[in-house]
C-alpha cells in the first residue's frame, strides 16, 4: 500500500464497549493488545480504548484487514471485543458501542453511519434523552437533521455540540496516554560468577543496552537498582542514587563495582538485573568566563570512592544552623550549587583568625585569680595565662535565661625564646561549674 494512503489518514478506532460479552480478564488487557498495533493509545480503562491508526497504511492492505487483526488479537486473549474504524473520534466511539463485530466507516460517511442508530447510543444523559423522545426524535439521524440554530436557542452552547455529536464530528482531541517507562535489563549467566573482576565485563553487557535505551528516550538514570541472583537461590539487591543523574554506562559500572566492593554478595552470581529510574536529562548553559563545573559523573564516581567517609556521614559540605548556639552546624551531601551570578563582585573579608575546635571540648582545670583565668591545665594545653580577654556570656538556648556559657580568649605565657605558646578559647559552663577548652585560635 502506498505511503500516506487516505484510507488510513486520521483513522481512529474504538475497541471494546459495553457489549463486550464477558468481563475483561484484566483492566489493562485491551490496552496491551492495542499497544501491539500502535503506541498512540487513549484509554479509559478498561474500555473504551481509542487507537490512532494514522500511518499504518504501510503495514496493512486495507482498514478491514487491520480491524479484523485487532479483533483476532483480542480474541486470542479471550476478549470478545467490538471495533469501529472511523475518521472521527466521536463516530468511532458511538459505533464501537452500538455495532457488534467490526465496523469500518469511509471518510465523510460518519453521519450516514450514525443516522440509523437509536438515540440511546449517544452519551447525552437520561434527562435530555427523555426530552428528545417527547419531541418525537428516535434515531441519531433525527437529531442530526435539526437545525443547530434551533438547538442553540433551546440549549445554549450545548445545542450545537449535540448537533455535531449526532453528525459524528469531533468535539475533543485525541490524547494518547504516555507509554509506561520501564528500563530494565536482565542477564542470565550460563555458569556462576564469583569475584568482581569477571563481573565488571558482565555489568557492561547489562548496563550498555540499558543506557542506550535511556539515551534513545532522551533521559538519564537518577537511580539504579541492581539485583544479583545468587547460586544459593537468594537475591543480593543494591540501590544506587548518585548526586546527579547519569546516562553513562561506564560511570554506572564503576559505581556498582565500588558499591559491591563495600557490600559483596555472599555467593556466586547467576543472574544480573539492572533497573533504572529515568530522570530528565540535565541542561546546563556553560559560561565563557566561569570555571568549568564538575562533571556530575566524575563527582559521583569520586564520592563513591570515598565510601568509607560517606557511609559514616563524615563527609559533605558544612553549613551553619540558624541559631546562636556556639559551634552549631550540620553537614549535608556534597552537591556544589550552580554558580551564582555576580557573586565574584562581592569583596572577600580580610583574612581572619580561625578557631581549631576540640570536639568534644576538653575538660580543663583553671586557676582563677582576681576574677580572670591565671593558669590553665587540660589535655595538650597547659600554662600560665599571659593575657586574656573576656568574659562574654553566650547561649543559644531560649530556656537558658542565665546565659550559662562564659567565654574567654587566653594567651598562654610563652617559654623562653618563643613569642607565643598559643591562644585558646576557654569557656566556663556556669550550670555545671566546669571549665572547658573549646579550641585553639590560629
Amino acid at each position, binding site marked *: 500500500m502506498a505511503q500516506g494512503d487516505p484510507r488510513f489518514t486520521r483513522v481512529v478506532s474504538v475497541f471494546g464497549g459495553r457489549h463486550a460479552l464477558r468481563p475483561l480478564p484484566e483492566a489493562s488487557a485491551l490496552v496491551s493488545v492495542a499497544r501491539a498495533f500502535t503506541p498512540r493509545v487513549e484509554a479509559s480503562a478498561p474500555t473504551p480504548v481509542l487507537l490512532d491508526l494514522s500511518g499504518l497504511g504501510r503495514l496493512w492492505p486495507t482498514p478491514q484487514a487491520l480491524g479484523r487483526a485487532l479483533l483476532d488479537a483480542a480474541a486470542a486473549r479471550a476478549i470478545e471485543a467490538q471495533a469501529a474504524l472511523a475518521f472521527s473520534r466521536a463516530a468511532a466511539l458511538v459505533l464501537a458501542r452500538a455495532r457488534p463485530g467490526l465496523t469500518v466507516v469511509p471518510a465523510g460517511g460518519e453521519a450516514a453511519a450514525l443516522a440509523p442508530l437509536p438515540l440511546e447510543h449517544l452519551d447525552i444523559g437520561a434527562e435530555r434523552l427523555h426530552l428528545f423522545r417527547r419531541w418525537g426524535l428516535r434515531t441519531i439521524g433525527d437529531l442530526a437533521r435539526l437545525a443547530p440554530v434551533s438547538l442553540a436557542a433551546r440549549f445554549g452552547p450545548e445545542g450545537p455540540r449535540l448537533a455535531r455529536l449526532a453528525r459524528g464530528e469531533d468535539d475533543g482531541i485525541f490524547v494518547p496516554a504516555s507509554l509506561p517507562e520501564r528500563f530494565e535489563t536482565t542477564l542470565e549467566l550460563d555458569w556462576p560468577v564469583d569475584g568482581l573482576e569477571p563481573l565488571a565485563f558482565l555489568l557492561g553487557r547489562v548496563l550498555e543496552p540499558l543506557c542506550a535505551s535511556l539515551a534513545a528516550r532522551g533521559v538519564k538514570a537518577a537511580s539504579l537498582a541492581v539485583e544479583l541472583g545468587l547460586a544459593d537461590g537468594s537475591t543480593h539487591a543494591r540501590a544506587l542514587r548518585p548526586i546527579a543523574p547519569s546516562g553513562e554506562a561506564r560511570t554506572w559500572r564503576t559505581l556498582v563495582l565500588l558499591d559491591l566492593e563495600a557490600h559483596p554478595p555472599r555467593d556466586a552470581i547467576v543472574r544480573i538485573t539492572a533497573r533504572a529510574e529515568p530522570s530528565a536529562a540535565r541542561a546546563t548553559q556553560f559560561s565563557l568566563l566561569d570555571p568549568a563545573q564538575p562533571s556530575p559523573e566524575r563527582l559521583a564516581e569520586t564520592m563513591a570512592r570515598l565510601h568509607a567517609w560517606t557511609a559514616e556521614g563524615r563527609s559533605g559540605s558544612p553549613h551553619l544552623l540558624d541559631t546562636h548556639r556556639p559551634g552549631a552546624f550540620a553537614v549535608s551531601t556534597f552537591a556544589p550549587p550552580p554558580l551564582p551570578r555576580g557573586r565574584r563582585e562581592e569583596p572577600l573579608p580580610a583574612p581572619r583568625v580561625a578557631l581549631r575546635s576540640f570536639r568534644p571540648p576538653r575538660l580543663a582545670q583553671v586557676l582563677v585569680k582576681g576574677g580572670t583565668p591565671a593558669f590553665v591545665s587540660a589535655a595538650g594545653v597547659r600554662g600560665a595565662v599571659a593575657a586574656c580577654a573576656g568574659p562574654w556570656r553566650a547561649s543559644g538556648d531560649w530556656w537558658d535565661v542565665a546565659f550559662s556559657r562564659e567565654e574567654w580568649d587566653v594567651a598562654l605565657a610563652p617559654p623562653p625564646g618563643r613569642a*607565643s605558646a598559643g591562644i585558646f578559647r576557654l569557656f566556663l559552663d556556669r550550670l555545671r561549674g566546669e571549665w572547658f577548652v573549646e579550641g585553639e585560635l590560629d
Partner: protein
Amino acid sequence: MSAASLPAAAAPSPAERKRLLEDLLRVRRLQADAPPLRGEDRRLRPLATGLVEVDALLGGGFPRGALSEVHGPASSGRTGVLLALLARTTRCGALAALVDPLDRLDPASMAAAGADLGRLLWLRGPRGASEAPLPKALSEAMAAVGTLAGSGLFDVVALDLAGASHERRRLPTTTWLRLQRLVEGTATAVVLVAEEHAACGPGGATLALDPGAPRWSGPPGPARLLDALAARARAGRHAGRVAAFTLVAV
C-alpha cells in the same frame, strides 16, 4: 560639532570584532579577582590566599600540580592562611576539599573567612579524633587525599595534620612521593598543614610560620577583645624570604 558633520561610523569588520573581543577577554583575565577563563591552562595560575604579604612571598600563591605545605606552632596563623586559601578558591567558583582527620575545622570560622561552603567538601575524622588521632584515620585520610587529587575536580585539596605529628611520622616516606607523583601535571594544589616541616614536592611551596605577639583591643578588663594575630612567614625550603602578616580577630 553637529551630528550631521560627524563621519559615518563604519561597522567593525569581523577581524576587528575578534580583536576587540580578545582584548576584552585579556583584560578580564588580568583582573586579580577574575576566575580563570574556560579553556585556559589553569596550571599556569597559582592559587592566591588573599594575604598580600604571603602571596608576594609565594610568587602569587600556592602552585598547582604540586604538594605544598604550611607549617608552624600553635597560633601561628596556619589555619587562618588555609581558610583564606579555601575561601578564595571557592568564591571563584572552583571546588576545594579539606581532609581533616582530627576533626578540627570550625565551620563558623570558614564562613567568616568568606568561603562558599557549598563548594567545600569536608572529610572529617572519626568522632573524638581530636582527643586521640588513630593511625588508621591517618592512612584513610591519605587515601582520601589521593582520591581527591586524582579526580581532577578540586583546585585545592588540603590535608590538616596539625596536632598529629606523632602519627604523621609513622607514615612511610613514600607516601608523600606517591602523592606528589599523583598531583603532577594536574590543576590541583595539594596543601599540607602541619606543626613542623613534613613534606613538600619539587615544585611546591613551603610556608613556615612563626607566631607573633597577639594584639588586644585595649587594657585588661571586661571590654577587652582579641584584636588580631600577628605572625611571620618564611617561604622556601631554606626560609630565605620573610614577610610579616596579620590576621584580624574581630
